[in-house]
Each structure stands twice: as structure tokens, then as C-alpha cells.
């Protein structure tokens, strides 16, 4: 199983400013200390080996879109969420379909807020008459949300003008479905208008969990045992870690999001193998996200009980092989 991150930002798509890029270049030049490089490959090796991630790269700014590529699946695309990262994914998918990949998309929606559906109008395969897109959701009003954002007041292309065969399917928490050759379980989460987490298990037993836009309420901490059960032994848990715990329980309480350290605690309890920090706060710079990642690794070390939990920080373009 390969998990590919096309969009990792929360709430609002963001882009690097000219000043931010200028700062990265200036920092890189200082780090190079006057060295010269024979070619771009040598310079790229310097970037990869000697610069920190926030200087030499970026976490990106597209909103949530994840691809799960299961070698033992049925060959369809398996996607979580239609955030703005879906635009880039759609372009990439066309290339793979031209090479013979099945033109079938199974999409699993965490929920229907703008940052999770706004990539759909720019998702190229929706215009492809040979593509079939099945949008799975826990929400009974999923079709309404997709149609509404393409009404003329919001977008020039009406939903009914799309050429792909588009279907909607409502899933129920607690059930296990066989979709795309994978076992898919669904969990209801606490968020405005609800959200849903998904647990994907391939025939080889590899498991990835997608759990974003999920607030773990301070008044119901005992309920986290159910979440840990859903995360149990997962090879990868992708978790909403938008805020610090202090923010999540004070100013940003009831905003529907979680923190890095609650995610780590639940993953520890679940004996999960890897956690991907996800749904990054749009006001965070790359330096801020990198700092949060380092602090998260340190917190995991401080509170570790049994086997270590690998703490990754998702970025647009990250691929994790399970």
C-alpha cells in the first residue's frame, strides 16, 4: 500500500509568498557558505542533505486530498476528500489512465465543508465521459453539497454538464465495506455537521486510517477508547493536528479540530505504527509546521511506552509506503 498526499492544508488553500521564497533562498545561500555546485543535481543534493525541510522545500498549501494506492486492490483509484489537491491529482491521474489505469475513482469524503470539496470543480476526470466517479460519504446530503457548489452563483460549469458517470453512496458507521478491493470501515467524528473517519485494510493486512476534522472533546475523553480501537495497530494514521492543545481547549474549542499531542496519545493507545500530522493550520509558515513536527517527535519520545510511534509530517507530494 502506498499513501500519496496531494493536499495537506486545513481550512483554506494557501500559497508561498514572494517574501517567503526569498527568505528560503537567502537562508540556503548562507548555508552554502560560498560553495559552488557543478550542476543542478549537485545543488539539489546539497538541498536534500544539508538544508532543513522548511528551507529547502515547502509543506505546500493545497487542501485535503489523499490517494491510497493498493497493489492488491481492484485497480480503481482510491481517494480521500476533494480538497484543492484534487486538481493536481486529476492531472496526474490522466497520465496514468493514458497508460492503461482503470478510469474508476472511489472517493471517501470526510465531510462536505468547502476545503474538502472545492477541488472537485477543477478535477479533470469529472469532465471525462469515460470516467466513473463514486463518491462515498457518511452524509446523506453529500450530493446536495456537490451540486450546490456548482450552481451558477458559485461556478460557471453546472454539475449536470460534467461528462463522467458520477454516483453518490452513503456509508454507515460500524459497517465494513469491500470497496476497490479494500475493506473500508467508517467512524463518525465530532465536527460541525459531523465528519467521518475511514479505515482501509488491503488483502495483505496493511492498514491506513484517514481521520481529519475531528475534535476530541475535553468533556468526553473516555470516548477516545473508541477512537483508539478504530486506529488499532494501523500502519499509518493520518490525523487532524491543526492546533496546539492549549488552543484546542481554549480560544479554538468547538472549532472542530484536534492537536498533535492528542493524536500521539491516541496512536500510542492504539499501538499504531505511524502518524502523519495533517490538516495544517493555514496561518502556519513552513517554519511553524516544521517546529510543530519537531515538538511532536519530542512529545512522542517523552510519553512513549512500548514500541515507538513514527511521527511524520504530511506535505503536498509526500508518499508513504506501507
Amino acid at each position, binding site marked *: 500500500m502506498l499513501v500519496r498526499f496531494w493536499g495537506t492544508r486545513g481550512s483554506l488553500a494557501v500559497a508561498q509568498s514572494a517574501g517567503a521564497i526569498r527568505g528560503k533562498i537567502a537562508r540556503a545561500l548562507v548555508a552554502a557558505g560560498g560553495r559552488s555546485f557543478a550542476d543542478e543535481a549537485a545543488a539539489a543534493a546539497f538541498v536534500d542533505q544539508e538544508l532543513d525541510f522548511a528551507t529547502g522545500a515547502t509543506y505546500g498549501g493545497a487542501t485535503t486530498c489523499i490517494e491510497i494506492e493498493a497493489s492488491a486492490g481492484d485497480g480503481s483509484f482510491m481517494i480521500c476528500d476533494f480538497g484543492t489537491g484534487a486538481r493536481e491529482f486529476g492531472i496526474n491521474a490522466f497520465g496514468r489512465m493514458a497508460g492503461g489505469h482503470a478510469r474508476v475513482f472511489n472517493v471517501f469524503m470526510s465531510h462536505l465543508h468547502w476545503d474538502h470539496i472545492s477541488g472537485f470543480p477543477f478535477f479533470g476526470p469529472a469532465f471525462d465521459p469515460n470516467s466513473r466517479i463514486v463518491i462515498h460519504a457518511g452524509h446523506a446530503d453529500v450530493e446536495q453539497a456537490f451540486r450546490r457548489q456548482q450552481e451558477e452563483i458559485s461556478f460557471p460549469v453546472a454539475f449536470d454538464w460534467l461528462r463522467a458517470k458520477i454516483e453518490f453512496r452513503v456509508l454507515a458507521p460500524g459497517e465494513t465495506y469491500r470497496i476497490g478491493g479494500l475493506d473500508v470501515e467508517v467512524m463518525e467524528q465530532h465536527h460541525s455537521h459531523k465528519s467521518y473517519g475511514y479505515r482501509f485494510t488491503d488483502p495483505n493486512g496493511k492498514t491506513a486510517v484517514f481521520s481529519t476534522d475531528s475534535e476530541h472533546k*475535553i*468533556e468526553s*475523553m*473516555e470516548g*477516545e477508547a473508541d477512537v483508539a480501537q478504530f486506529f488499532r495497530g494501523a500502519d499509518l494514521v493520518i490525523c487532524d493536528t491543526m492546533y*496546539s*492543545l*492549549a*488552543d484546542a*481547549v*481554549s480560544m479554538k474549542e468547538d472549532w472542530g479540530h484536534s*492537536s498533535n*499531542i*492528542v493524536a*500521539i*496519545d491516541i496512536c500510542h*493507545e492504539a499501538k499504531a505504527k505511524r502518524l502523519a500530522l495533517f490538516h495544517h493550520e493555514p496561518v502556519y509558515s513552513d517554519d511553524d509546521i516544521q517546529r510543530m513536527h519537531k*515538538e*511532536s517527535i*519530542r*512529545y512522542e519520545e*517523552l*510519553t512513549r511506552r512500548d514500541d515507538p510511534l513514527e511521527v511524520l509530517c504530511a506535505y503536498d507530494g509526500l508518499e508513504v509506503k506501507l
Partner: protein
Amino acid sequence: MIWSEEMRGGAIVAMPKGKIDENTAQDFGTSLEGAVTRAADVSARLVVDCAGIEYMSSRGLRALTLAKRKADGAGVRILLAAPNEIVREILAISRYDKLFGVTETVEGALAA
């Protein structure tokens, strides 16, 4: 988690000992809220002497928040004193050092 407390310098000083995690956080929270009630009854502040806490997970931190909400409603001030290096680091990572007053020593909390 072992809980004890005493009156000292016009404050209730609580001295929890052990690990505060999902196994002990409920007892920790119940003890904290009881101490808040007792502090309110005598118009005292509540100083949590953290020296005996090995580490505190998010469950313990959130129990602190629930106690603080009760304390704020009762006019009781909670201060965290003398955390070890691990707990101090966890307070910083969680940004709880912005929500609570943290002092190097119990005496510092009593004088704050």
C-alpha cells in the same frame, strides 16, 4: 497516581505523584476538582506541586483545563510549581505554559 495535599502559606498545595496518563487522568481530575472546591471554601489558591509527576499526557493536561474552568468560576487561582524537565517540556509543547502560571518552586507559587 498518588494524591496528597496540605495547607501551606495560605494555599492548598497538592502533591500528585506518578504518571498522569489515560489510566490515571480521571483520578487526577477528580482529585484536582475536589481540591478546587476546598480551595474555594477557604478562599485560597491551589498550588499543584508537580515535582512528583513523572510525565503528563494530554489526558492529564485536559483534566487541568477542566479543573481550571471550575476554579475560574469559583475565583480560585491554580498555579503549577516545580515541574521536572519532562513535564516542563510537555507544558511548553502543548502551550499549556501559556494557559497556566508555572513557577520553578512551590515557594515561588506561594509568593506569586
